């Protein structure tokens, strides 16, 4: 049961099922009921005590319900998808670690603990992206994901530091609750004044931007989105859970939690970055051929939508989109996983070498995988915002609100809603392209595989995979979220997320016109897509510069490689050169000086000091030698000496 023999993942399954049940019960108890919280002391430094605790309000209860609801189908699906993989025991371990971290993230009541779980989620993502670590691309991808996430963690830390300095607490209730410290602070005379501290008002903007930096890295906003397409190296079930539904949503969750902190400038910045992200990702998705890459860019684009939702002040709409996006994106990934699974089977059976994820090798799969086709189409309609799906409600809520917001701010701001409308139409186009190229038309590599096998080249996915997908498919339709399919304001989700009124006035005509524009635009894009991909009347140049740029993701990866990787290597090489030629020669020079001094010292010691001593000795010797001559035994010498001493005595007596 335990360790390497746990191939079935039954422990993880039971665990996530329990989370699902308890999440549901918690949601029932907390939704639209008073907030519940509890905390204990953790540690004290100086005069500050840091506490650990749980906070359950509408937002965390919603996430507590969402995460297991998406994770449970993924766990069941993984049993079939990862079957036979030699590392499957690690898979269940990492998946459970991730679910733990994500659930922990949403219930914590202190920003410090949120940070801890934030990093843990990033770590679990690193482990799962590099699950097949024997592949070089997977190793590069998980390294990239972790490093880019680290930049966001830096932003989180800076935000934490600023908040702690300003408010002396990191508790969410004390800060952002209804009578919280944020609401008691104000910006007066260029200073951000709080009940316990005051600092220059620029720090308010910086704090907001720091938390947004954290969300930018985690939720793959431009320009820190580069890790998400590469993260597709991990198993598809991992991509569906982490990189579509939950982890990337953590950034949006964070922003919704610290929303009272943002001032005008920070919010505008968020909205702009969100729009840029949505636009660039949609553009890149148009030129991709890998099925998972298209979905990855689609995720980035939809996250951009959510950020715009936060930037314009309607964070309830952003969270609504988060929830609906979780379901249909997860379903899209699971269906893509089913297709890839079958294509990989075909590859091993026919002993050919083709990329099982490449759209150009697929086509006409509707014949062989009808249920997958229906489910994927439902999810695609939800992504495109087609009426009667959940995506219609949430996406339109953001687009319409952005239009009303732009009207209230000034005509220049209309760029954002107009861009969002264009992006939505592009979204419909690229997801339509995916469906058309994969499921309709003819199976493109049929000629290559025809004689290698008997019967159909592909089979429908197994029941273990289909049933979770089916459950998610039900959640993509409108009844789960609102009994009224056309108005999003009736959704129970929006009602519960406590935003009494927006800062801008509603525009009722927009509620009609914009959905109409989006619907017509989507239908037109699908007609064009049908013509191009099913009837093969493609009229654009495949090798055009614009398409090449889209395929190469705008060459952003190459830019980062050139600036950061090559730059760092150049700096490292320079440091090596400096150390080798400058520092070492300095050391050698000092060594030379010291040696010369010591040689001089030796010379002085040998010739001068010793010479002096020897000279004294020589003088003594010579003197002695001279005096010795007296003792030569000659009589006259003796007489001479006597005479000398008598003379000396006489001189002494006479003169002294």
């Amino acid at each position: 049961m335990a360790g390497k023999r746990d191939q079935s993942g039954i422990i993880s399954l039971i665990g996530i099922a329990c989370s699902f049940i308890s999440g549901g019960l918690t949601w029932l108890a907390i939704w639209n009921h008073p907030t519940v919280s509890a905390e204990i002391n953790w540690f004290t430094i100086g005069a500050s005590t840091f506490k650990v605790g749980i906070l359950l309000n509408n937002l965390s209860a919603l996430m507590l319900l969402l995460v297991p609801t998406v994770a449970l189908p993924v766990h069941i699906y993984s049993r079939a998808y990862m079957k036979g993989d030699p590392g499957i025991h690690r898979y269940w371990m990492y998946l459970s670690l991730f679910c733990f971290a994500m659930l922990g993230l949403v219930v914590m009541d202190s920003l410090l603990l949120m940070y801890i779980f934030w990093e843990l989620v990033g770590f679990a993502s690193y482990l799962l992206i590099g699950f097949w670590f024997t592949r070089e691309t997977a190793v590069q991808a998980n390294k990239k994901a972790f490093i880019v996430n680290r930049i966001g963690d830096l932003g989180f830390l800076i935000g934490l530091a600023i908040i702690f300095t300003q408010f002396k607490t990191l508790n969410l209730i004390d800060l952002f609750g209804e009578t919280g410290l944020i609401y008691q602070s104000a910006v007066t005379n260029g200073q951000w004044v709080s009940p316990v501290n005051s600092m220059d008002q620029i720090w308010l903007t910086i704090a907001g931007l720091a938390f947004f930096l954290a969300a930018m890295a985690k939720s793959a906003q431009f320009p820190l989105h580069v890790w998400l397409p590469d993260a597709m190296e991990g198993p598809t079930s991992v991509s569906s859970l982490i990189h579509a539904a939950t982890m990337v949503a953590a950034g949006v969750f964070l922003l919704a939690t610290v929303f009272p902190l943002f001032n005008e400038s920070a919010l505008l910045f968020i909205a702009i970055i969100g729009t840029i992200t949505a636009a660039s990702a949609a553009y890149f998705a148009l030129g991709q051929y890998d099925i998972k890459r298209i979905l990855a860019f689609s995720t980035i684009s939809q996250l951009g939508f959510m950020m715009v939702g936060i930037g314009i002040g309607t964070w309830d709409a952003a969270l609504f989109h988060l929830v609906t996006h979780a379901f249909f994106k997860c379903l899209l990934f699971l269906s893509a996983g089913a297709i890839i699974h079958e294509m990989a089977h075909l590859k091993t059976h026919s002993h050919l070498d083709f990329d099982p994820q490449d759209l150009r090798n697929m086509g006409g799969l509707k014949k062989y995988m009808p249920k997958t086709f229906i489910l994927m189409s439902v999810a695609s309609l939800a992504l495109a915002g087609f009426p009667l799906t959940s995506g219609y409600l949430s996406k339109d809520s953001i687009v319409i609100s952005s239009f009303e917001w732009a009207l209230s701010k000034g005509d220049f701001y209309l760029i954002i809603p107009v861009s969002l409308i264009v992006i939505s139409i592009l979204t419909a186009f690229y997801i339509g392209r995916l469906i058309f190229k994969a499921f309709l038309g003819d199976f493109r590599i049929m000629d290559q595989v025809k004689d290698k096998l008997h019967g159909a080249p592909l089979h429908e996915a197994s029941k273990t995979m289909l049933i979770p997908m089916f459950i998610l498919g039900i959640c993509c339709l409108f009844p789960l979220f609102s009994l009224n399919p056309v108005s999003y304001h009736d959704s129970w989700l929006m009602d519960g997320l406590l935003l009494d009124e927006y800062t801008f006035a509603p525009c009722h005509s927009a509620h009609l016109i914009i959905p109409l524009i989006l619907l017509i635009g989507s239908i037109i894009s699908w007609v064009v897509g049908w013509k191009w991909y099913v009837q093969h009347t493609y009229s654009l140049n495949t090798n055009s510069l614009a398409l090449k740029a889209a395929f190469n993701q705008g060459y952003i990866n190459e830019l980062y490689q050139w600036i950061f990787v090559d730059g760092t290597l150049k700096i490292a090489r320079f440091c090596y050169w400096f150390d080798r030629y400058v520092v070492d020669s300095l050391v050698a020079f000092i060594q030379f000086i010291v040696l010369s001094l010591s040689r001089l010292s030796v010379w002085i010691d040998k010739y001068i000091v010793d010479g002096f001593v020897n000279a004294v000795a020589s003088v003594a010797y010579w003197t002695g030698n001279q005096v010795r001559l007296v003792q030569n035994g000659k009589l006259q010498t003796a007489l001479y000496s006597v005479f000398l001493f008598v003379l000396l005595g006489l001189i002494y007596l006479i003169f002294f």
Partner: protein
Amino acid sequence: MITLTHFLVVSACIFCIGLYTVLSKKNAIMILVGIELMINAAILNFVAFGKYDKVSYGGQIFALFAIVLAAAAVAVGLALVLNVYRHYKTINPDEINELKDK
């Protein structure tokens, strides 16, 4: 006038000549000559100072005794030199050096 000082200077000169002879001659007989000169200088000194004792003529008397003693000393000295010659076969004082430390 010839004062006492003249006598004393002459006496000193004779003494120094005698001393030099003792210290530098390479003949033992010449050493005896030198000794004799020194004694004679002392005798001259006595006689010079004798002018102050007109009562008992002390200087003159002592000079007479000194002359006799000088003669006796030289006689003894000559006897010594003869014996030394018998042993050393030379009377060069430089070669009579067996008193030195080995």
